[in-house]
């Protein structure tokens, strides 16, 4: 089955996460130490753990009473996919049972994080490693306890704060334990950049892990950049870890959990600190450092550029966004008191590069990443969003996002990351896609209708309409409609009917009179030309040319419609003539009648083919239209040059 590939993909991450965990723990311990309350912490943890044990006991009691599945049952029943490839997984679960019996206070999380790797790697040396493992577990355990405590705290405070949130969370609570187990096998923090990116995509085509994107977006706001706290103030630890957990479990909801400046900064830092290898990659980081110590600044840039090309794409994107964001931060030095030097001092250790290198990257960043722009992320809609977009283009954009989201959910589920919430989301996304598609289709139908209407109106109007010569005065009126109505230039003529022109005209003439600007009329083209000094000259000219081009297109289309109509008429006549002489046609047909079954199949085959072709035709038609529009835009540019 297709399980091999995801598994292969998963494993490196899991190892990596372990390694990173160890690393992060180290660094965390260090930081704890520096705060000077290390001992306190561990005491607290001990107490917390004891409490935890009790709590857990209770939980289990509940579970048994309600027939709610306890964790190991869950593993068996809830994931049919696993039972399919059962061998490894059955083994896993049975083994985990064993483990639990040996050390009952082991956390679920630990199991999830360790089961798979431990199966393969530690199996043989299990006995030897037991002690080490226990130590490791304990460390993990402490961390977990902290997290859980915060969560409890958070829950309490939430209950006070918001009712809806409370209900949400209590609902989740039953499942939470289980979900954590599953989700923590697929974390965002502590895995390679590419894996993190893949696991929490931005669905608008920018390859960044969502957590990084959200933090940068938040910090890129004017008031954040100007704030003196930025990259200086540490957040409340529990809050930070709360956000880490949210992102790791893909539960972050921007509308509910708003970041603040210290948290966003530290979350970014945490992400980088937990990367299994530096963002500049272990292979290349030394060479980067070499280049950074290069004396000649100009050559430095070229060489950096060259090295950057060699980075994996997602690493490059990540670096680019960070550097451009830092650049934006130091642009506001006046307010936040951070310059390149001091910012590098603060952050170069986190990014695992030297101070010198970071300063070098910072000072070249706009040249190094000319193609990257920091764009605020608009996540895909959810069912709670106010409504779907109306314009076909917006619908297309949204569809692309939703498709990207859907494929991510599918690939994660195929890899075994299955929770109730995920399943809910799967259906929801699918539903939104269906709605979008239906809406798009109805838009297309409307367009077709409007073309039909256009047909009838043009056939009625063609004799009298002065389409060929757009006189100077009415020009401005249709411009409005064209610019508003870029979706369908074909509907422009409806605005052109004499009735429409009249009311618009005064306003056009009013604007020049109100501001008594001289204008000339270009004799060749009949364009209104404002004096070169006028700011609107360009725009007016552009609109006039665009209008001309669109009119040309319209005329072309109209002639073609007429031609097609004539063709239809001709064919109809031909058809009628054929009907009149039936005897000749029937004779050969009768010979074919015997094998009727084949006949039907052939018919079915062709109806299907035709439907497909029809679809293709529509797509091509749309493409044609787009291309044509691009042509027109270019034409306009070209002609602008002439003036």
């Amino acid at each position, binding site marked *: 089955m297709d399980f091999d590939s995801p598994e292969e993909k998963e494993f490196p991450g899991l190892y990596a996460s372990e390694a990173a965990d160890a690393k992060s723990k180290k660094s965390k311990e260090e930081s704890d130490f520096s705060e000077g309350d290390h001992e306190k912490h561990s005491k607290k943890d001990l107490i917390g753990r004891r409490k935890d044990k009790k709590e857990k006991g209770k939980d289990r009691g509940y579970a048994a009473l309600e*027939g709610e599945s306890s964790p190991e049952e869950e593993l068996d*029943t809830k994931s*049919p*996919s696993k039972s399919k490839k059962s061998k490894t997984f059955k083994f896993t679960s049975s083994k985990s049972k064993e483990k639990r019996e040996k050390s009952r206070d082991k956390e679920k999380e630990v199991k999830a994080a360790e089961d798979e790797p431990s199966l393969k790697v530690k199996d043989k040396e299990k006995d030897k490693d037991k002690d080490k493992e226990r130590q490791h577990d304990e460390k993990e355990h402490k961390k977990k306890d902290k997290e859980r405590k915060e969560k409890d705290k958070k829950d309490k405070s939430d209950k006070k704060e918001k009712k809806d949130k409370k209900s949400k969370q209590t609902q989740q609570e039953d499942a939470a334990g289980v979900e954590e187990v599953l989700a923590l096998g697929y974390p965002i923090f502590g895995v390679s950049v590419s894996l993190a990116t893949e696991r929490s995509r931005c669905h608008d085509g920018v390859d960044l892990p969502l957590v990084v994107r959200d933090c940068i977006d938040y910090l890129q706001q004017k008031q954040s950049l100007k704030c003196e706290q930025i990259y200086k103030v540490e957040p409340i630890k529990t809050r930070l870890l709360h956000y880490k957990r949210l992102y790791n479990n893909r539960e972050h909801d921007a509308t509910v959990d708003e970041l603040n400046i210290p948290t966003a900064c530290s979350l970014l830092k945490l992400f980088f600190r937990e990367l299994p290898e530096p963002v500049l990659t272990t292979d290349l980081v030394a060479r980067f450092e070499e280049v950074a110590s290069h004396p000649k600044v100009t050559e430095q840039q070229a060489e950096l550029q060259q090295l950057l090309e060699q980075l994996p794409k997602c690493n490059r994107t990540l670096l680019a966004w960070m550097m451009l964001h830092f650049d934006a931060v130091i642009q506001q030095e006046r307010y936040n008191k951070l310059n390149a030097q001091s910012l590098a001092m603060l952050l170069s250790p986190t990014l695992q590069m030297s101070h010198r290198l970071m300063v070098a990257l910072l000072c070249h960043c706009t040249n190094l990443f000319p193609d990257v722009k920091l764009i605020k992320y608009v996540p895909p809609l959810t069912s709670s969003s106010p409504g779907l977009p109306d314009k076909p283009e917006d619908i297309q954009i949204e569809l692309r996002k939703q498709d990207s989201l859907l494929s991510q959910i*599918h690939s994660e*589920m195929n890899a075994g990351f*299955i929770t109730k919430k995920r*399943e809910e989301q799967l259906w929801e996304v699918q*539903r939104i896609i269906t709605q979008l598609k239906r809406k798009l289709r109805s838009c297309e139908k409307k367009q077709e209708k409007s073309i039909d209407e256009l047909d009838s109106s043009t056939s009625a109007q063609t004799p009298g309409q002065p389409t060929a010569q757009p006189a100077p005065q009415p020009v401005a009126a249709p411009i409005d409609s064209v610019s508003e109505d870029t979706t369908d230039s074909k509907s422009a003529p409806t605005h052109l009917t004499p009735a429409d022109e009249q009311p618009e005209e005064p306003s056009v003439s009013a604007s020049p009179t109100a501001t008594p600007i001289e204008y000339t009329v270009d004799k060749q083209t009949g364009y209104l030309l404002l004096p070169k000094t006028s700011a609107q000259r360009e725009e007016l000219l552009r609109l006039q040319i665009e209008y001309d081009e669109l009119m040309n297109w319209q005329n072309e289309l109209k002639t073609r419609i007429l031609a097609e109509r004539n063709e239809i008429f001709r064919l109809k006549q031909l058809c009628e003539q054929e009907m009149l002489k039936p005897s000749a046609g029937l004779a050969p047909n009768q010979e074919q009648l015997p094998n009727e079954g084949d006949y039907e199949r052939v018919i079915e085959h062709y109806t299907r083919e035709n*439907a497909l072709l029809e679809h293709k035709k529509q797509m091509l038609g749309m493409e044609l239209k787009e291309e044509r529009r691009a042509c027109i835009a270019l034409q306009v540019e070209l002609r602008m040059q002439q003036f």
Partner: protein
Amino acid sequence: MSKKPTAGPALHKVIMVGSGGVGKSALTLQFMYDEFVEDYEPTKADSYRKKVRACTLTPKTLGSATQCCTPSLQVVLDGEEVQIDILDTAGQEDYAAIRDNYFRSGEGFLCVFSITDDESFQATQEFREQILRVKNDESIPFLLVGNKCDLNDKRKVPLSECQLRAQQWSVPYVETSAKTRENVDKVFFDLMREIRSRKTEDSKATSGRAKDRCKKRRLKCTLL
């Protein structure tokens, strides 16, 4: 295993399965929007949600088909307001990879074939097996649906054969026409009713009984 009935209108998740071109989408759209789409456009996957409101449909009135449920926006199942999520899947094998993800979360299945196409009937066997494999539960709410019954003159699958298969699986068999709307509401309502009774049964069951049944189910499956 047991699902607690959540607050608010109950939500039943229905999945349409069957070969390509048998009319899964047509049935769905007819039920959802009272529209019949002539042209064939392959589905990858589509999902719909509908609120169902009571006009007290008893099975008997349902038997007499079409008009008993006025095309109201909401569906009412025996006086109770429920929501229905319908997932319309791809018939083609090409999308089988993503199908499992949906099957897993489905609570009831409409297995559709065309009575004018014997191959689509044969394919139902495959779909049934796939569902049982994923759901691990032989008594999952399931209806065998013979669509296109308005084309009775072109029937390729004899009624007796359909009924026999349904009997073997111990599931109901219903013939529908997405075109004329015959029995369209019936199949969805019947299935929802099965899902609902299944859910109440599950939630009533004491933990011990539930466990027993789980064991039974698993046992059966190992036999499979």
